[in-house]
């Protein structure tokens, strides 16, 4: 969290630079069933972030060494499009996307009823088309809706949300400037019905009290986004194509 202190992120009225209050999320919209070629798919816009997720499978797991006798494996690829950031990103996997893919897969394996599909693989492809801070969370939310759209049984949905700290103040859902110049970022994947946590990362500096407040904000945001996820799936089945 470099560069703290060199940019003012809170206005004199206590609001943030884009006019949000400290516990206010950026606008979110979700659509399910957006990619005809996929078994399940979703597009999530969260602020200026745009993430698309596609699900293929369950299918035969290959190479065979990745097979698990007792359950399915979830193969996640989180990828940022070359034009999704300020400076163009060279296509291909890097260390950051590999790590995000790994922990996202493990989070999704925690909610999908993987025991139902031994020796198989479920492919989850997360493509970030536009990035404005918080893309891993937007990707998780998109992946969960895409899995549900594919009809894959899950214990619960999973919602990606993040809170952080700017100018010693805990705020919900960091935008780009806040992420670049803030003091902490706490992205989590929340199971909205059970209240459990399947994804957790953090970097920066938070006191225990600040952590607790950030988590409180995250749970509030997760239940708001969950409503939109369910609504997107309902609209998709009312639409009734493929």
């Amino acid at each position, binding site marked *: 969290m470099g560069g703290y202190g060199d940019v003012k992120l809170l206005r004199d009225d206590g609001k943030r630079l884009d006019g949000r209050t400290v516990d206010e999320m950026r606008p979110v919209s979700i659509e399910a069933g957006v990619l005809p070629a996929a078994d399940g798919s979703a597009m999530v816009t969260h602020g200026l972030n745009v993430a698309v997720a596609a699900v*293929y499978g369950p299918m035969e797991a290959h190479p065979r060494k990745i097979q698990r006798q007792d359950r399915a494996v979830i193969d996640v690829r989180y990828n940022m*499009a*070359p*034009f*999704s950031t300020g400076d*163009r990103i060279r296509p291909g996997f890097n260390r950051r996307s590999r790590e995000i893919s790994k922990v996202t897969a493990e989070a999704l394996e925690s909610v999908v009823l993987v025991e139902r599909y031994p020796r198989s693989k479920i492919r989850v492809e997360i493509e970030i*088309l*536009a990035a*404005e801070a918080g893309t891993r969370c937007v990707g998780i939310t998109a992946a969960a809706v895409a899995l549900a759209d594919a009809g894959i049984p899950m214990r619960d949905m999973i919602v990606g949300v993040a809170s952080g700290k700017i100018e010693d103040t805990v705020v919900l859902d960091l935008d780009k400037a806040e992420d670049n110049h803030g003091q902490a970022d706490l992205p989590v994947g929340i199971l909205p019905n059970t209240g459990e946590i399947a994804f957790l990362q953090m970097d920066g500096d938070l006191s225990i009290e600040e952590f607790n407040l950030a988590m409180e904000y995250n749970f509030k945001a997760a239940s708001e986004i969950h409503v939109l996820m369910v609504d997107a799936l309902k609209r998709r089945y009312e639409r009734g194509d493929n």
Partner: protein
Amino acid sequence: MVELVPTLLRQELERLAAEDQRIDGRGQWDSRNVSLEVDCLYNAEGSAKVVWGDTIIYAGVKFEIRTPWPDRPTQGSLMCGAELRPVAHRKYEPGPPSPQSIELGRVVDRGIRESGCIDMEKLCIVPGEKVWGVMIDIHVLSDGGNIFDAAGLAAIAALRTAVVPAERFDVGEDHRLLVNGSPIMASFTRAGGRFVYDPSEEEELGGDERIHITLGDEGHLHSLQKGLRGVFTPSEFAEILAVAEQKCTELREMVAEKEGN
């Protein structure tokens, strides 16, 4: 993943062709529905989304400042690349760029480059020192057939609406990228023994060779590509070229209309 070519699909395509029909009910030279959206992504200096039947493709334009090639000190550069990522179809696997994605990027690149719609001299900032590098990235999200035409359309639409981010690089004021003309691609696949325009996924799967034609505003040819196994006659080519002229004109008007907004 190797796609099996179902014998039954091939037979069905042949039967339909004999009756002058297509598997989705279209006529031989009919297109599927095409929709185009421009300036749809934050961070990309130019962007376009094309939904062409079941095919969905985004193109994004980014700029960088680089030193010019020593033998062309006053010319910028253009690069167009494509990624057939596993998101787009279950047949695509992760890994380094496949020959198919390289072919797609290069065919689109040639059409744009050779049409001369981008004047490389206009991309010069300081001769011998600083020029703009323009990079078009084609991102296929759903392959429902005929990704070439959709990619070409997305690329030129993104380019024609791109804004050069001069302020961010501290080299002047932001300005619209100068693009003289709209090269447009039209693609044909042999399905059931005859060529059809805008092949669907099934027609590609059960079909043979494909031909991609890129035409400029004056109706001149700027890029041709024959792909996959199969042969064709000059008279077959003359026939599809005539169709291409009409299709390219229609799509060029669609791009012009979106730009006006």
